């Protein structure tokens, strides 16, 4: 296939993915908007006003970047894992497998679809946050690039989860038992400076801490970690996860007998 045909195939997958999550907006776009609004009201307004400052900012300002990033992470992951597993489960992955679409185009299409939902939800949550705080962006380049890179990492993660999943339980285990704890312990609600040294060290093993703090740096200009190291680590994750995902597609893991 020449590049024009590849682009058409890629765009077809992306449009299909975007159409899927917008068609079921009440399941995909509305719940995070409601949940995050509740976080803003309860943690930001009600409890936050009693907590006082965190990292030199009032508590609401401090948690908004973390909550936006949390939405991007869970939705980028959730979109790809549910969509690709559903495609596998209903066998309509065969529509793609019989067509002359290279595996890297299939992967890119699903990842961009996942990023689209992650970014759409991120924008909705950002817009809602403006009702509660005055959001200033300290460094636009860092803010935008870290969101794009983070959603890529988790879209790839969702893809790998979907490839290995055999049942609907398998697509909820990782988000429930791995992703959610890591996100909550990834500095969304607090600065790791509040933790004893030992737990600060443990927290630094959590990759989500680097993503949340780099995004917070982009918006507020403060971070618990080295931003340059965070970018290098995230790019490293993308290379490894993309390579592994392509390998799984090439051998037909979970999709070809």
């Amino acid at each position, binding site marked *: 296939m020449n590049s024009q045909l590849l682009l058409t195939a890629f765009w077809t997958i992306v449009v299909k993915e975007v159409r899927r999550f917008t068609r079921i907006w009440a399941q995909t776009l509305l719940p995070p908007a409601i949940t995050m609004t509740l976080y803003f009201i309860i943690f930001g307004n009600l409890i936050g006003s009693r907590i006082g400052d965190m990292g030199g900012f009032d508590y609401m300002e401090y948690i908004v970047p973390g909550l936006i990033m949390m939405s991007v992470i869970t939705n980028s992951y959730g979109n790809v894992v549910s969509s690709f597993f559903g495609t596998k489960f209903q*066998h309509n992955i065969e529509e793609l497998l019989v067509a*002359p679409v290279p595996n890297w185009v299939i992967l890119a299409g699903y990842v961009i679809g996942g990023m689209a939902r992650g970014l759409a939800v991120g924008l909705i949550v950002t817009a809602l946050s403006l009702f509660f705080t005055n959001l200033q962006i300290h460094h636009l380049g860092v803010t935008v690039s870290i969101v794009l890179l983070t959603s890529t990492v988790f879209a790839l993660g969702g893809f790998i989860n979907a490839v290995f999943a055999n049942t609907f339980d398998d697509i909820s285990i990782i988000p429930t038992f791995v992703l959610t704890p890591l996100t909550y312990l990834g500095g969304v609600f607090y600065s790791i400076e509040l933790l004893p040294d030992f737990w600060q060290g443990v927290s630094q093993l959590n990759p989500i801490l680097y993503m949340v703090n780099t995004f917070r740096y982009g918006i507020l200009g403060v971070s618990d970690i080295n931003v340059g190291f965070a970018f290098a680590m995230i790019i490293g994750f993308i290379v490894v996860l993309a390579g592994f995902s392509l390998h799984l597609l090439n051998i037909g893991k979970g999709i070809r007998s």
Partner: protein
Amino acid sequence: MTLALSIDNLRKTYDNGFEALKGISLEVKEGDFFALLGPNGAGKSTTLGIVSSLVNKSDGKVRVFGHDIDTHLTSAKLCLGVVPQEFNFNPFEKVFDIVVTQAGYYGIGRKRASERAEFYLRKLGLWEKRDVRARMLSGGMKRRLMIARALVHDPKMLILDEPTAGVDIELRRSMWEFLREINAAGTTIILTTHYLEEAESLCRNIAIIDHGRIIQNSTMKSLLAKLNMETFVLDLEQDIDSVPELDGYSVRLTDPHTLEVDVEKSKGLNPIFSQLSAMGYTVASMRNKANRLEELFVSLVDKNL
């Protein structure tokens, strides 16, 4: 003559150790209407799955219009349209979107894809249902949707894995007409079916696969010529008490006015009528007891057990 499909010593052993294909070889000529028959679990769907890249082969060579699927998979895929046995579209998508999306996977732009989708949906009587979600269609409509989807990129070869399963007779015959039409227009068709009447009516060449091996591969005509004996059912106008003696024929009485007569090819039917007439019986109607291909199929598969 160009070969549309060439399979050489194809083997498939699944992860659980089941050997589905034990080295089959097969050739289908361009423009052919080819039947691949066999009992359940014989290896038909595995063979077609390998040709259409849904199943990984263990060994052997497959070429589609000369394109080796190991080295020129993209070119091979461009030549193929696949209608699988099970419904495999997204049931929540609209009929029109399913067909247009499939065209997009082949690199066909939205405008052209929409035109082709309209052409095939009209052709297959689904245009009125274009905005209906696929899950709302009847079984026959779902089958036709899969055919429209498989044809949207105008493939040179169409693979149909039991396309008329669960489809009523009227619809089945209209699908046969459609398939004859696209075959006459140059599309090579490979068909698996459990309706042997369908294979006999449509296909020019046939392979029978059983236990992962090809046990018969010939033209439909030469295969049917092998049939020595046919059984005819004769409905008599008069009631009959006992089995009449017909010289040179084996006769059974199935009810008081119905006879079953085994007829060897060399003997013909006239002596039956003259002998019955001499006995005072009138034959009201007559029919072949079984589909001819069905008889051959059963005898070939039985021999292979």
